């Protein structure tokens, strides 16, 4: 994914996912292989329709045709869920060529339409997901109930079936120790926060995903507007914290960022925890204009490419964790020195 889109110094990506099922077919959990195949065929057929071709150029991948590593790479690029990668009975994914749309078949639900946009574009993501939903809805008979709305396998998705989220990079709020107060305020307005936590309470890479928790009893627009409004406020808090860091402790911040840059550029062993923290520092340095040597796009690519599955694919070998840490350091070094000949990211 390219580093662009509005507010992309703070919001890495915006995502909307819709969960849908077909009437008169058991949900994937209880479906037999042949029932799953039938659902897959029907949905893949719709995926080949002219209407969908107007939205973009799509490619259909049947998951049983991929090996384990190829599936894992799709997971790390956030194109399919770990769920679909692990249990791929009748599983398939319809991907747009720019990888912004991923339509998963036979995940927990028959159909999951996912739109991923760079930067802060949650409304745009919902617009596109809704448009694709209309195409499938016209050709397939969805499981829908007057009272409960769109019927899903899990009761936490019923109603709108919508899960909207923004992935935010919030290093300044973490550094200034305001993050916990803000996160607990967020959960009180019906939103959930997901961070990847290491030991202690510090989030790895200072990345936080904010998403709606409620899918029933609110309209799609209310859900999207609520998430948008809250995310907008967090962006402002993070900006304020960043400018305060610059005015009050510029030298300290600059030192931290440049040390991380130096370590990433020269280290011989780099575990994933340290990598995500150092990459977060450097990314902040780029966004604050304290580091000119690196582009934001390179940072985005590194965040994805240093994941285990990606590393394995790049180096085309099976790796134990020790080798992986060495390879990770090697990849980061080369990438930061401007040799961007890795992978297909």
């Amino acid at each position, binding site marked *: 994914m390219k580093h662009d889109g509005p507010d992309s110094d703070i919001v890495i990506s915006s995502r909307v996912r819709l969960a849908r099922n077909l009437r*008169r077919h058991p949900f994937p959990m209880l479906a037999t292989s042949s029932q799953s195949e039938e659902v897959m065929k029907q949905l893949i057929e719709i995926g080949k329709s002219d209407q969908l071709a107007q939205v973009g150029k799509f490619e259909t991948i049947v998951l049983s045709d991929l090996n384990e590593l190829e599936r894992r790479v799709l997971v790390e690029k956030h194109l399919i869920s770990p769920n679909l990668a692990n249990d791929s009975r009748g599983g398939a994914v319809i991907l747009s060529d720019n990888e912004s749309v991923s339509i998963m078949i036979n995940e927990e639900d028959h159909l999951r339409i996912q739109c991923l946009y760079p930067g802060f574009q949650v409304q745009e993501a919902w617009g596109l997901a809704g448009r694709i939903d209309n195409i499938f809805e016209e050709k397939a008979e969805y499981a829908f109930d007057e*009272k409960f709305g769109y*019927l899903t396998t899990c*009761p936490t998705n*019923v109603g709108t079936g919508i899960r909207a989220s923004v992935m935010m990079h919030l290093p300044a709020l973490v550094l200034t120790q305001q993050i916990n107060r803000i996160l*607990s305020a967020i959960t009180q307005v019906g939103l959930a926060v997901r961070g990847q936590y290491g030991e202690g309470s510090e989030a790895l890479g200072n990345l936080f995903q904010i998403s709606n928790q409620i899918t029933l009893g609110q309209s799609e627009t209310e859900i999207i507007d609520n998430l948008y409004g809250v995310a907008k406020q967090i962006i402002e808090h993070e900006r304020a914290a960043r400018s305060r860091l610059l005015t009050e402790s510029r030298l300290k911040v600059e030192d931290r960022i440049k040390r991380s840059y130096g370590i990433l550029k020269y280290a011989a062993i780099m575990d994933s925890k340290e990598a995500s923290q150092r990459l977060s520092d450097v990314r902040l340095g780029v966004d604050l204009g304290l580091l000119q040597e690196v582009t934001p796009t390179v940072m985005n690519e590194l965040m994805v490419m240093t994941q285990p599955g990606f590393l394995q694919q790049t180096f085309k070998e099976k790796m134990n964790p020790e080798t992986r840490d060495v390879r990770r350091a090697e990849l980061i070094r080369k990438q930061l020195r401007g040799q961007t000949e890795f992978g297909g990211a």
Partner: protein
Amino acid sequence: MICQECGKRPATLHFTKIVNGEKTEFHICEACAREKGESLPGAPNGFSIHSLLSGLLDFEPAGAAGGGVKPKAARCDECGLTYAQFSKIGRFGCSSCYKHFADHLDPLLKRVHGNTVHVGKIPKRYGGQIQYKREIEQLRRDMQGRIEREEFESAALIRDRIRELEKKISDL
């Protein structure tokens, strides 16, 4: 409130489980729920969202005692899933499960979403019918009020309008 699993992060998932009148509360954070969820389904010490949900489901809803089908005995005749099984795994087997378990779902949905009725998008192919049904409900309440106030003439007009809409539904 702090997560009772890790004791560090704020809890975002709050559940109350009532078994034989005894109330147990869970407060955990999303991260812990995720983490514990990996080992599921069916893990003995599982603590995933689904097992939490099933904890919620594992009680007789208030008011169920006074006759009617015991929820445990309810069964989806489409996919064969019983309410007891649904309670364990916290997932539905097919879209008909919602119909067969409908009487028992409101307390669960209320806890998870704070609401029990969908107000969002309606698929086009169902849209017309649902609009008409909502209008009919509204008209019936209106008609009832008029009958109570002995405004029979205008009540009759409303009755005719209801019949019109019912015919439209059957023609769809």
